[in-house]
């Protein structure tokens, strides 16, 4: 796991995702830089957990994005979170 881009945001994201899914071991995050101070996280979870991380009408996903955004602020980056199977 690359820690250099946004360690706080990544740690928070991992914690949040692992908390809401049924298979926490299958959560993995890939961080990539998308600009000067922008990081994109691709979160992959078990296929069956997609619904859990996204939630009804994307509520869980947007809550996760909000909190990760705050964590990213600590790292001085803006964040983007995508969920992939």
């Amino acid at each position, binding site marked *: 796991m690359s820690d250099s881009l946004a360690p706080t945001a990544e740690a928070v994201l991992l914690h949040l995702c692992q*908390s809401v899914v*049924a298979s926490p071991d299958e959560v993995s995050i890939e961080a990539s830089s998308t600009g000067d101070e922008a990081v994109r996280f691709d979160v992959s979870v078990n296929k069956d957990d997609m619904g859990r991380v996204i939630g009804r*009408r994307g509520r*869980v996903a947007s809550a996760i994005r909000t909190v990760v955004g*705050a*964590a990213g602020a600590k790292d001085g980056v803006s964040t983007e979170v995508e969920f992939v199977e």
Partner: protein
Amino acid sequence: MEWIETTAKTIDEAKDLALDKIGVIAAEAEFEVLEEPRQGLFGRTRGQARVRARVAPKAPRAKEDRGRRRRKSGGGNKKSGSTATSSTSTASTSTASTSTASGSGADERDGDNNGAAAPGASDRGRSSEGGNRKNGGRQNNKKKSNREGSGDRSRRGNNNMKSDAPESSLQEVEACVSGFLTGLTTAFDLDAAVEIDTSNDEVYAQIQGKHGLLLGPKARTLDAIQELTRITAQRTAPSSIRIKVDVGGYREQRSVALAQFAEKAAAKAIDEQVEVVLEPMSPPDRKIVHDALNDVDGVSTRSAGADPRRRVIVVPDEGPASSDNDASADDDAANDDAANDGDSAD
């Protein structure tokens, strides 16, 4: 409890629609599939999915339902028990499923926790015997720190299933909330203790310290944290216990400010004998206003509008009002306050 009925192309859509109508999250609703969508020739959908829903008296029963349905559609039926259930396909009712042999209760539960888990996943859940809920096992892996043993927990969950009151205990919810929030503050690398104050039916988690980072603009971050806390707690320890998360006393302060604002609005309503329409607010904020003005003589309150834009209206009572509230024109600041509520409700 009222049932409402919805139809849509798929069961999930119908379910979603129903949830919107009754305005609760899936975990709090109870569903009955009245009719599954039938596939017509050439893959064209002919029949509509019909779903009946209501606010569930017990939360996990709805989950159970949902699991059963998913499993069915996943085609991963493995147990004779579950096949029996699915044979009731078109007109299956949740009550029917819960009243199946008591032994199968745990299995149902298993399937549910695997969620949409198709065939492969079922091995995991099934391998453990009835008493050991998948949920308990998972919880244990995930938060070793705050859970001593899953055995006791699972058993309780199971008993609850049978007694039709599947409530996790306050301690379980508390442990789950504290584990989640402690993990969160650790991930944030913040030195913030989490204090949990548990009363009869509410877990109130206070993250100590003024951490603006956790609050966010218009408390959006805090609201998101609270939502995720609730979701996590609901998934690991299902219950109807209310959970509130606060950072550095923010919510408390705000509710005091909001109550003061409400009193000013009441004073205005009484003085000018007009209805004062407040800004749109979120349900908890509206409750604060209603509660604050409940004790004020000369006014009553009601709400109008649909939810993201629902607002409180302060109505002066008929006749000579006994006004012992100071009229004040300086409710600009307070107005901003209310505007904030409206936004955070979105």
